[in-house]
């Protein structure tokens, strides 16, 4: 963090859907941006710079979105930056925007992240065969499923924990009008009965494929103090590591642990489970809830699943996780990380509607990407950091 305080004063998102054939990518971004600006009670004229993030280029076949989006993002005559960090891009994009404010470079920054999964095929894009190498790759699920199996073996978790996460997040989504999946009938039993896609990951334990966007307005303290309900940014952290290395821990990655340690230190937090009131964690496959609870330090290694099993990650639990429905209920990949950061901000602003955690004062936003190799997190609070 730089020495200037920064806060989120505007949050906007689209109603995430399987297909938004009525709008272009520019139009999709604008829905989120216009809502964020209205929430902030600002206009494009008040914005100093724009930071945009999206999913990896092959996912949409758009190599340089900033070229064609400049007008739609209101960036004419202003600095426009693009951020890339695979699936964590929404989180790191928000951090780049907040850094421009905390470094004192700009006072009011607009940031947006988006994806139209309906215009491409992410599974194909993640599985393009490479010469000389065995073509066993099968999308993100195929990549992460073996590591989920490793987690289950290492932790000794009962095999229904993943289904508990999926059922919880789908029920939470019913309280979020923006969430893509609205399936009132999802239960632990129905998740367990769904088709095994990438054993041990079932169909109902995977994220949907969504079109959607998210935008934030991040400002300096002077602007934030006159805003209705700022979410003050207490800490931000990003860490990276190689995709593959000898003896690399793919279940509890080192970069994730380092990221969490830096984040909690910066935020002055010594016991995350006691000091964080709501967490929005990037969980594209259900088992990543207990895995990231451990990686983030909410639980000891091997015991994250006990929090899930005891109901402690429900909205009324000790550490509510993904009250918005999370990535398991809406996954416009490029925007999914920013949605986690945005939902954390909504919680501490008291603006999360039906999925509000009572009295939330400090919240975590988390994103990861690549082969669990990019991590981005922030802590936001209802009051400025002390």
């Amino acid at each position, binding site marked *: 963090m730089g020495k200037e305080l920064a806060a989120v004063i505007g949050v906007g998102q689209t109603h995430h859907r399987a297909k938004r054939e009525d709008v272009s990518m520019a139009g999709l971004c604008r829905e989120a941006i216009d809502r964020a600006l209205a929430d902030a009670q600002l206009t494009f004229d008040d914005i100093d710079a724009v930071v945009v993030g999206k999913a990896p280029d092959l996912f949409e076949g758009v190599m340089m979105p900033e070229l064609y989006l400049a007008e739609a993002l209101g960036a004419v005559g202003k600095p426009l930056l693009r951020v890339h960090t695979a699936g964590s891009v929404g989180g790191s994009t928000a951090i780049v925007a907040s850094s421009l404010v905390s470094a004192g470079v700009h006072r009011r920054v607009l940031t947006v992240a988006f994806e139209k999964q309906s215009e491409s095929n992410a599974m194909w894009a993640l599985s393009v065969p490479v010469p000389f190498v065995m073509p066993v790759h099968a999308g993100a699920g195929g990549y992460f499923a073996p590591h989920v199996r490793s987690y289950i073996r290492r932790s000794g978790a009962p095999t229904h924990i993943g289904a508990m996460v999926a059922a919880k997040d789908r029920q939470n989504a019913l309280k979020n009008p923006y969430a893509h999946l609205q399936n009132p009938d999802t239960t632990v039993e129905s998740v367990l009965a769904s088709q095994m896609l990438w054993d041990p990951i079932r169909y109902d334990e995977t994220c949907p494929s969504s079109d959607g966007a998210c935008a934030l307005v991040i400002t300096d303290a002077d602007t934030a103090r006159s805003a209705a309900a700022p979410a003050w940014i207490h800490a931000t952290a990003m860490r990276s590591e190689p995709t593959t*290395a000898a003896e690399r821990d793919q279940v509890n990655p080192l970069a994730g642990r380092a990221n969490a340690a830096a984040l909690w230190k910066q935020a002055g937090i010594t016991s995350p489970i006691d000091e964080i009131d709501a967490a929005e964690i990037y969980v594209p496959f259900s088992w990543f809830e207990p895995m990231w609870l451990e990686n983030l330090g909410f639980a000891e290694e091997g015991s994250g699943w006990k929090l899930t099993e005891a109901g402690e990650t429900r909205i009324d639990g000790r550490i509510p996780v993904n009250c918005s429905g999370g990535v398991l209920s809406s996954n416009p990949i490029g925007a999914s990380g920013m949605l986690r950061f945005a939902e954390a901000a909504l919680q501490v602003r008291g603006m999360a509607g039906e999925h509000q955690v009572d009295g939330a004062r400090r919240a975590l936003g988390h994103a990861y990407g690549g082969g669990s190799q990019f991590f981005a997190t922030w802590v936001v609070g209802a009051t400025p950091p002390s």
Partner: protein
Amino acid sequence: MTSPLTAPMRVSFDYTRSVGPVLSKFLTGLRDQRLIGGRLADGRVAVPPPEYDPQTHLALTEFVEVGQTGTVVTWSWVSEPVPGQPLDRPFAYALVLFDGSDTPMLHALDVPSADAVRTGMRVRVRWAEERSGVITDIACLEPADADADVAAQAPATGDGEAVTGIITPVDLHYTYAASSEESTFFRGLAEGRLIGQRCPTCHKVYVPPRGACPVDGVATIEDVELPHTGTVTTFCIVNVPFLGQRIDPPYVSAYVLLDGADIAIQHLILDIPADEVRMGMRVEAVWRPREEWGTTIENINGFRPTGEPDADFASFAQHL
């Protein structure tokens, strides 16, 4: 150090684009042989219309049909056209200000030589015979001779449904090159050998070898010939079919830690029902007939159980 192996690679996909309400007007116009621009807040007419006004940032709502004849603002000569360009003979790319528009638009101008182009010359649209609401509905531009009868062009039509989406195929052909270190491994496969390399700093054995050890940043150098046996560390069973898939599901995609290696390779598990595959299972490589070998890991069909007792969890736990 060996020379890098290369192979042709092709990545192609038909992306779709929802065009939104503003570009829908322009593309529907093209299909109907009309040039539709949008009026900006400052009164200028832009062709094609931007979706959002660069000054007010609002979506464009006022649309204006402009003339199909215009003036060349500037141009460049394409002496050697490449596949995918609008014309297969030398042509000019021209920025043209259509009559009634205030912003120039780029398209191909069909003239016999660069001598036949000049800034300020008058040109007009030549429509493609079949149109679907894409930019190539304008086949190209052509000189507008003074004696040509513009009115003789086919009349515009306008009774079809609005264009709301287009297909934008991407087709990339390029040469993939493996690193020198990986090439050692792939060439070894052509001889039925599994060659790893040890990092000189951390002493871990990488298979395939690496141009840069991910931990130490230095190339692996010392060859280590590995046995054709190993342990399944973890795996998944792929039941889901998808576009571009090369192996029919269901199949077991496993991490196999070759004996003596410090990193697992991904391959198939064969000759055992998928639901009987276990973490720790001992396996051996199943090679194709020698006459089918090339410089590829596909020389190995997969790995099958050796029948040995499973490896202790502790022996591979640090590889998960």
